């Protein structure tokens, strides 16, 4: 039995797609490095390396490469693997469920898929930590990354003339 996720519109993204491609291919695209490298990072960035150990606690590692060639490794692990149905992974835990040091952007992603006629309906949800959590990390002096702890700064900037 798996706990279901309830989206928090302030923190989570839920994207739904219907595509006229068999579910088997959608699953493979999410779970095989040679496929994932082709699409996982929005261009002009790319994925230069990817490692997948497709089982709960198994590694999910992608190395993102900037257009200038700078590389940013991301390591996380899978939490749930239900072939052709459901894939859950997180940046918050390393392989073997060891807690990760605070990373750029803590998230858990849930991907579910089902047949829709001859095609597939899939839903990708990205769950993020709450703002309080982000601020706390900040106060503890962790390196922050994408978007983290910007709220305060932006709120400050909005009060400035010309904003």
């Amino acid at each position: 039995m798996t706990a279901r996720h309830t989206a928090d519109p302030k923190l989570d993204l839920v994207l739904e797609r219907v595509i006229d491609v068999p579910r088997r291919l959608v699953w493979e695209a999410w779970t095989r490095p040679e496929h994932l490298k082709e699409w996982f990072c929005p261009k002009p960035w790319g994925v230069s390396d990817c490692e997948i150990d497709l089982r709960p606690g198994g590694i999910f590692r992608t190395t993102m490469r900037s257009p200038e060639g700078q590389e940013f490794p991301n390591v996380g692990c899978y939490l749930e693997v239900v072939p052709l149905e459901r894939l859950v992974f997180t940046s918050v835990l390393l392989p073997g469920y060891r807690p990760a040091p605070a990373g750029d952007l803590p998230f858990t992603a849930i991907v579910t898929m089902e047949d829709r006629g001859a095609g597939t309906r899939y839903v990708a949800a990205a769950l993020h930590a709450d703002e309080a959590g982000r601020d706390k990390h900040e106060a503890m002096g962790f390196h922050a990354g994408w978007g983290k702890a910007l709220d305060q700064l932006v709120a400050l900037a909005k009060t400035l003339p010309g904003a």
Partner: protein
Amino acid sequence: MTQPALADDVFRALADPTRRKVLERLAKGPASVSDLAEPFDMKLPSFVQHLAVLERTGLVKSKKTGRVRVFRINPPRLRVAEDWLAEQRRLWEARLDQLDEYLHRLKAKEENP
């Protein structure tokens, strides 16, 4: 919607704690390089590098007055980073667009090997 490359640059610039602290300081008003460097235990050339990143991204502007270079914040650029969730959505949308495109290629390859 913001330019993706610009958003990337802005987020990268903001990803560093020193640079965020500089921005917080500048949000209170303009300051010289030496004022800005003062709270940091860092060699001046390294610190100036951080300022250069911020200026290149357009998050701050500087002007030389006499022998002193004064920095000020550039609020419009900060708004690029404003809607954090919108940026995340942009990232995921772009990712899934690429996935769908790739899936169509995979399917075509299977049908016409």
